[in-house]
């Protein structure tokens, strides 16, 4: 088996300033091109886990390795740069800068990731191609993000996560704001794109019906221990 794209081991984390919330995770490994669904109710530590993977928080102990680099050993600003280079992020909703155009939003991560920028020959053409692949009309490129429907916004967010082909895409309940029909077509497009570029996808959700489409489904409670003690 090839080296995992994403590997977390012996993670222990305690929220600063918030007594009584601690999280530990013995191990989580995601292979290249693998799609993983993390299932859990709210409060199961999903958001914390995503923040740990993205490096906006660092564990008190343990190691997070992404694409062969141990993020936990990097300085805060190097982690920011590393995230920009290697991880595409899709939120639940409100993914976009409302005042920016669609194209502005899609090419934004390249601004912070020079290597990822180099992988893209022409950011504007790449953005247009991604829009086309995700079924967004050409006329949308110069539209302000806040004029788009929620479904369109989520697709723009996918295009932004995919541009420059980062090895890992992290998605935080990206379909929860969409109706059932839109959910299906959104996931179709997302999976088509991750499969085409052999991109690993880690998605968190509380909806077990999505599980069938993923390579692997992990229940949060099976890998993560969350301790809440009275403050």
């Amino acid at each position, binding site marked *: 088996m090839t080296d995992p794209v994403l590997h977390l081991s012996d993670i222990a984390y305690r929220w600063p300033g918030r007594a009584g919330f601690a999280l530990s995770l013995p191990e989580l490994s995601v292979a290249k091109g693998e799609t993983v669904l993390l299932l859990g109710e709210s409060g199961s530590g999903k*958001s914390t886990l*995503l*923040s740990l993977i*993205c490096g*906006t*928080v660092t564990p008190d102990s343990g190691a997070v390795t992404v694409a062969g680099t141990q993020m936990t050993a990097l300085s*805060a*600003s190097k982690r*920011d*740069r*590393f*995230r*920009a*280079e290697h991880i595409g*992020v899709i*939120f639940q909703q*409100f*993914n*976009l*800068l*409302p*005042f*920016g155009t669609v194209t*502005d939003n899609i*090419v*934004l*991560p390249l*601004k*912070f*990731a020079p290597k990822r920028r180099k992988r893209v020959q022409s950011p504007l053409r790449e953005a247009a191609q991604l829009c086309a692949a995700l079924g967004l009309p050409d006329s949308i490129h110069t539209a302000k993000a806040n004029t788009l429907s929620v479904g369109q916004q989520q697709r723009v967010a996918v295009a*932004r996560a995919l541009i420059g082909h980062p090895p890992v895409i992290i998605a*935080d309940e990206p379909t929860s704001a969409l109706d059932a029909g839109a959910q299906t077509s959104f996931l179709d497009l997302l999976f088509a794109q991750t499969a085409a570029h052999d991109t690993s996808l880690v998605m968190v959700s509380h909806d077990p019906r999505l599980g069938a489409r993923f390579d692997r489904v992990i229940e949060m409670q099976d890998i993560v221990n969350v301790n809440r003690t009275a403050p």
Partner: protein
Amino acid sequence: MILRLAFASLWARVLTVGMTILAIALSVALFLGVEKVRTGAKASFADTISGTDLIVGARSGSVQLLLYSVFRIGNATNNVSWESYQEIAARPDVDWIVPISLGDSHRQFRVMGTTTAFFEHYKYRQGRALQTAQGTIMDDLFDAVIGADVAATLGYSVDDPIVVAHGLASFAEHKDQPFRVAGVLEKTGTPVDRTVIVSMEAIEAIHVDWRGGAQVPGQSTPIEEIRQMDLTPKAVTAALIGVESPLQTFSLQRAINEYRAEPLLAVLPGVALQELWAIVGIAETALLAVSGMVVVTALIGLMATIFSSLNERRREMAIFRAMGARPGFILSMLVLEAMITAALGAILGLAILYVGLVVLQPLLDSAFGLWLPIDAPTLRELWVILSVIAAGAIVSLIPALRAYRMSVADGMMVRT
């Protein structure tokens, strides 16, 4: 692209940002306007007299001499005797000399006795000479030339008779010798506008029947008799002097100040104006300080606007963070936006200033004799604008540092 996003972000909040820009613009316009009026007033002040190298009067203070001889404010404590005047006039380094005799008034306006040389040598606003709007300068003994304000206030025109009063607020009028308006001068923006000018001899003539400040009872010399009399002045109040060569100014000044026959004082108008301005300068500094505070208030408004926008922009910051932006980027973006806001405000303020100048320039000139030139922005004004932008950056640091801390704590997950 980041600059474009910053503009787009500002545009998305156009109403609040617009109000902030307007507040900064008005404060900058006020500040620059005060500065403009200040320098304009100073220049107008300095423009009151030009081309004159020395002012001579009886020994008093240099500011006092300047005030009564040029600005017609206050009174001379003493006169210069005609002999001393003649002696100075005869000096080889004196190119020209113009006597001034003050002490009488017409209504609320001062009467000044002088010679026709006054019209030739008195210059204002960088060497401009006096011009008559109507009529001519006096050539008869009982001719008077009046300033523009005198004519406008009292409704006089050429050939109107006027009666001169002795002293300044006195009812003792020299009724026996009425004057005729020979000419009305163009508006100059100097005290000349508020002056009635007659000849030196006329001043002597109206005092023929007066001794010690009062008319000799029963005595009234007929005009025809007066015309035959020797009306050589006995004294002058002050004199304006032009020297042959500027290099001689100081030696002539020293010679007059050390004049043995009588205590005299010679001052350089520019130096005396500087002294006077130093006194007036306190009020000017206070005005500038007040308008400076208005700019500070507008900048605090800018800071408040940024503070109040922070919460609604939390998600925007989280998006930037998720894209790999460092917290420092969030900080610099907010500072950049504040600088754009301050710059737009300052530039708009400059535009308001110029529009205001174009509109108010003729009004200020005719009402106060204050001429504000419309020039390209001075280096000093550009510095003011740069300072406002820099100050905008500095005040925005406080909310920006808060945003920095927020974005470190939030990471890419906003818990709302």
